[in-house]
């Protein structure tokens, strides 16, 4: 490209005009000056947030259109940010975040930030105790209760408590002690569970102000010595599905006022267990609600391989508890997710590589890799398409 001769003086002369107002200066008859504006967020049938751990630092989430492979937008989620709390009912989403006043030193402040889901601008924040769990991302670190009035964040200081935020009042309500237990799993509009180190499930009921109303320990939910549960559970409507290290699904039904613990059922048969097929990864389970299918990321490994990457996705029909599909991934994977629509896509990413890989979830066909989707891919969060 040839350099334009002596443009600097013209540019300087124009600078004042530009600074004032970007006023049009149509010296050519047909020229109309452009205005710098902000783009509207694009719709799409297959949009997915991919979280980026950015080398264990200030995290961000990038919204991708998985059909076009394009980046649509980005939000920042603070120091060791984990995921967004997406809303099923409002044009907002939330993010439990941690900040330090001087970058990587100084005073810690934890907040729940509200984002406008259309403009992607932060619209407010509610300060919470500065002790939410920091570490590798897990979606159970914080959750919206079912009617989305309360948001819960799990604290580890190392005391275990849960912060309750009233989103309607825009205020922090208080902390609920969950000693010996960890994380938050919503059980309805005013109820949540935590998973406990002694193998029990703790059920806590809130009142309409967000204060603890009742609690009940459900002992022997699992055996932490013989076969601990992965904390990476998925919810299928009224059922929480916890999967053990060995690959047994422990269902918990939350539809009644109490909790109903279903019989555990295996992802693998005896021969597969003998060959050490195990679930593993950072986000190894995904649900496709309308078809009632559970997607699981599995690998062949031994003891303590519960975070290893996999290259196989095994799919189960939750009605029959039978495997109905096997998908072979071309690349290593630590996170999987499935789009919620009726032409679902399977998303796969590996913490050790920057691509998001897209498959047709029904056929297992690899459709595309979106390169450089994130430097350190963490959790994946598909959002419901809103194409009219």
């Amino acid at each position, binding site marked *: *490209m*040839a*350099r*334009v001769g002596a*443009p*600097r003086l*013209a*540019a*300087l002369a*124009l*600078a004042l*005009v*530009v*600074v004032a107002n*970007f*006023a*049009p*200066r*149509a*010296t*050519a008859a047909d*020229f109309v*000056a*452009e*205005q*710098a*504006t*902000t*783009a*509207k*967020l*694009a719709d799409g049938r297959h949009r997915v947030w991919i979280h980026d751990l950015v080398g264990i630092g*200030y995290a*961000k989430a990038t*919204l*991708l259109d998985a059909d076009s*492979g*394009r*980046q*649509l*937008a*980005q*939000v*920042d989620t603070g120091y060791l940010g984990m995921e967004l709390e997406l809303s099923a009912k409002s044009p907002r989403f939330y993010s439990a975040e941690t900040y330090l006043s001087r970058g990587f030193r100084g005073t810690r402040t934890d907040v729940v930030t509200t984002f406008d889901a259309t*403009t*992607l*601008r*932060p619209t407010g924040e509610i300060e919470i105790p500065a002790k939410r769990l920091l570490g590798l991302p897990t979606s159970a670190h914080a959750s919206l209760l079912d009617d989305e009035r309360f948001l819960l964040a799990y604290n580890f200081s190392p005391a275990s408590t849960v912060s309750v935020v009233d989103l309607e009042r825009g205020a922090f309500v208080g902390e609920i002690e969950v000693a010996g237990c960890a994380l938050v799993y919503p059980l309805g509009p005013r109820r949540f569970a935590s998973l406990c180190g002694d193998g029990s499930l703790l059920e806590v009921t809130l009142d309409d102000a967000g204060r603890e109303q009742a609690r009940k320990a459900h002992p022997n939910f699992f055996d932490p010595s013989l076969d601990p549960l992965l904390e990476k559970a998925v919810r299928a409507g009224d059922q929480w599905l916890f999967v053990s290290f060995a690959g047994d699904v422990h269902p918990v039904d939350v539809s009644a006022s109490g909790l109903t613990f279903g019989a555990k059922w295996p992802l693998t048969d005896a021969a597969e267990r003998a060959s050490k097929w195990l679930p593993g990864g950072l986000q190894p389970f995904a649900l496709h609600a309308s078809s009632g299918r559970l997607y699981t990321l599995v690998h062949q490994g031994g003891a303590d391989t519960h975070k290893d990457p996999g290259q196989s996705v095994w799919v189960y029909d939750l009605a029959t508890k039978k495997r109905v599909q096997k998908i072979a991934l071309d690349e290593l994977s630590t996170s999987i997710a499935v789009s919620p629509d009726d032409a679902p896509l399977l998303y796969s990413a590996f913490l050790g590589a*920057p691509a998001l890989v897209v498959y047709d979830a029904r056929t297992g066909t690899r459709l*595309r*890799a*979106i*390169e*450089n*989707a*994130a*430097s350190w891919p963490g959790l994946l969060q598909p959002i419901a398409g809103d194409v009219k």
Partner: protein
Amino acid sequence: MSRIDALTQAAARRLASRTSRRSLLGMLGRLLVGGAALPLLPVSRVARAAGGASGGAKIDDPESCDYWRYCAIDGYLCSCCGGSASTCPPGTSPAPMTWVGTCRNPADGKAYIVSYNDCCGKASCGHCMCNRNEGDRPPYLPWVSNDINWCLGGENKIAYHCSTAVLVGVADK
């Protein structure tokens, strides 16, 4: 192919962008001959950029560093970040003050005044790093200096996200 670049590939972009196309083939030769010289640069990227040089630059592609409007840009292209050559990605705001360049549009042969509005309010986009310096001068001539973070708009508008190239005038008649 995806058009999204990330931090790990920015090096190649920068190599391509910070170097005139004319000299890139020469450097590529050295890179390939050198072997270990720049082992971390994705050589396929460099090769593609070099191929572009012989095959014709993408002067009409807003996601290419060769796009004609980008003659004095320095930053991530908003076209790769959810915006376009003249719009900021959702959730970010165009800086009210800018530096300007003068770029010739090969389609009509005219030189245009381009306002390089930074988009502000989020962390770096990280895709499509591009630096070209036609008419760029040091910070003592700030209105033509692309080294400056122009996100000066006050609260929530400090962080640099990406760069646009907005046509604001015709330089020659």
